[in-house]
């Protein structure tokens, strides 16, 4: 059973346009006081298990590169290689329209890698750790959140090749680079929210994985990773403006090399998206977390 029993009928009637008061409809969807209470308590539980959190992150980092030849170097080499390939493919098309196409491409790649990896990997984190969840008590959110954490660490390391590229091409970021940590917090919040929703959904609906794969593919194309914004004709531009990641990526590029001045609007939008995503994700997870075990 996915939705709370009483709400089922109401949601069906909403979809059929029946006459229900908005108050009644909202009551079903918004969290009750006890649920908010529970959500806050779960945050404290995560704090209590911070040692485990750190262990999960370090385990993920260790295991990922332990048996590979180049080890941790892959964090740096992977985006670099990808950039080289995409540069060779697209530079002829976009080289003249974009200033410093290399930096544009690389920043797009490492940002997208972070988002795509953190959400895809954490999507199956509950299902993948079902053994553990069934055996012992844990605040389950620790799984998707630790994956987001290790993804952001990878992201931070992959900034190294980016700065190497800057040195080579002669572009330097200005003082607003100090806002970068704040940006990291924003993307962590945004990705965490999405991860919590996806991992919870995956427990109830095992095709979430496939749906998200396709969604992610489409999403990638509506984010200006390897093409400049100007390429998109005006009447399709709205697709970019509806995409939250568009704003994240623009902000990232602005902070890191383009040195655009009017980023305030961008920052506001990004903050809204990240707070919305995290609140919704956290409340969503908390509403269904006690039912997860019955489906694992």
């Amino acid at each position: 059973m996915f939705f709370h029993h009483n709400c089922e009928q109401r949601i069906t009637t909403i979809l059929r346009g029946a006459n229900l008061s908005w108050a009644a409809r909202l009551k079903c969807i918004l969290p009750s006081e006890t649920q908010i209470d529970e959500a806050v308590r779960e945050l404290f539980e995560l704090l209590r298990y911070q040692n485990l959190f750190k262990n999960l992150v370090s385990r993920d980092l260790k295991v990922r590169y332990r048996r590979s030849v180049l080890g941790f170097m892959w964090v740096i080499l992977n985006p670099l290689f990808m950039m080289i390939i995409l540069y060779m493919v697209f530079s002829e098309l976009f080289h003249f329209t974009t200033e410093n196409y290399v930096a544009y491409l690389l920043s797009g790649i490492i940002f997208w890698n972070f988002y795509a990896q953190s959400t895809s990997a954490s999507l199956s984190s509950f299902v993948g750790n079902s053994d553990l969840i069934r055996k012992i008590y844990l605040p389950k959110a620790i799984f998707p959140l630790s994956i987001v954490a290790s993804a952001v660490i990878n992201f931070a390391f992959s900034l190294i090749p980016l700065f190497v590229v800057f040195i080579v091409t002669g572009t330097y970021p200005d003082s607003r680079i100090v806002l970068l940590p704040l940006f990291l917090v924003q993307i962590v919040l945004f990705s965490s929210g999405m991860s919590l929703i996806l991992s919870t959904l995956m427990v109830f609906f095992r095709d979430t994985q496939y749906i998200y794969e396709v969604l992610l593919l489409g999403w990638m194309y509506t984010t200006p990773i390897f093409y400049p914004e100007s390429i998109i004709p005006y009447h399709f531009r709205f697709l970019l403006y509806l995409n939250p990641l568009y704003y994240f990526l623009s902000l990232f590029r602005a902070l890191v090399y383009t040195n655009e001045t009017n980023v305030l609007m961008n920052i506001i939008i990004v903050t809204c998206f990240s707070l919305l995503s995290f609140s919704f994700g956290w409340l969503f997870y908390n509403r269904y977390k006690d039912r997860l075990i019955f489906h694992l």
Partner: protein
Amino acid sequence: MEELVNLTGVSVKYRITTEGPKTMQDFILQRLKGKKTQFKDFWALKKVSLTLQKGERVGIVGVNGSGKSTLLKVIAGIIKPTEGEARINGVIAPLIELGAGFDFELTGTENIYLNGSILGLGKKEIDSKLKNILEFSELESFIHSPLRSYSSGMVARLAFSIAVEVNADILIVDEVLSVGDEGFRKKCRQKIDEMIGAGTSLLFVSHNLSDVQRLCNTALWLDKGCTVEFGDADPVTRRYMICFDESVFADVPREHPLREAIDAMFLHGITNGYEQDGKRLFNPNNRVSRTEMAVFLARALNLRTTKEPTTQTFDDVAVTHWAARAIYALYHQGLIDGTRDSTGKKFFFPHDHASFQDILEILSRIDEEKVKANLAIFPDELLTRGRVAEMFYRFFDYGNDRIQLPATCSVNRADD
């Protein structure tokens, strides 16, 4: 007394969907069509209540499928109750799912830190306990190899060593502690006994009822999710055994004419039989010594709580005799006199065989009418243990103590 675990009216419902959406696609289609999911509710626990004080040891008995593991999961916090309240006030060390979260790619030490953190320990705590864990598990030389290279016994030993180092208030133990070889198993048992001795509370799930009787002070008997009984470990486990064992005594099968009488002796704690090769025997055809007779009577009359005797009334029964308490209790109740010889000394003749007359005489002193009514039919042949059981059965009306299992457990709500 501090209450560590308090379950009130806990019920757990598993909802089994017989026809429901398994994919997102199905879900949306179903909602649009207004179709409802078909499901069946299964109540694994029905209004179970349980309290565990600090230092208390509770045994949980029941057939497979009675809800024992669900109960443990509720206590461990893995499952939240559908109804009722579960309050847990302490650190739990579940010795049932050992090695949860072990990653076989990591080394022994790394796994100690990982497993320790899963059990709720902080890094500094694990640092201080590391030496103890390594010593206990006897794995010093292997600790830097990945877990892949360990044998299953080694993995189990490591897991157990970590779990016992958690300063738990509550130990949850499954009887299936078959870790490692006999030597290590003994170490495990000793360690658990040590922890219990130090005042750790215990939740013990077992089918081995003599273990439950030995280790626990109270017991909870579950059947089909309901509490059948919750009380002192000894009587509860006895009743459970009568209900479910093929026969309590291996040498007294169902067809034995005196089975009911002998089972009643067991039920009332008068005898436990002899354990031999893991089987419980009664030896119904053995003769009964006067000492044994005295012990049976004392237990039947609930005289076992009397103090140690101080004066030696019978010349042949020292105060240190293993049955002295029973014999002297009967004497002080005026039920036996012994025999006086010419020098004035009293004798009991503890090693002689008891006869029907002996018992009849003692029982007459308790209730002469009853003896005349119920026991007059006994021929004066040799008294065997089986016959003693029969006499007690008739005299003490054990036939009236029927054990009933609750037919159904009522759950006071309409099914969702």
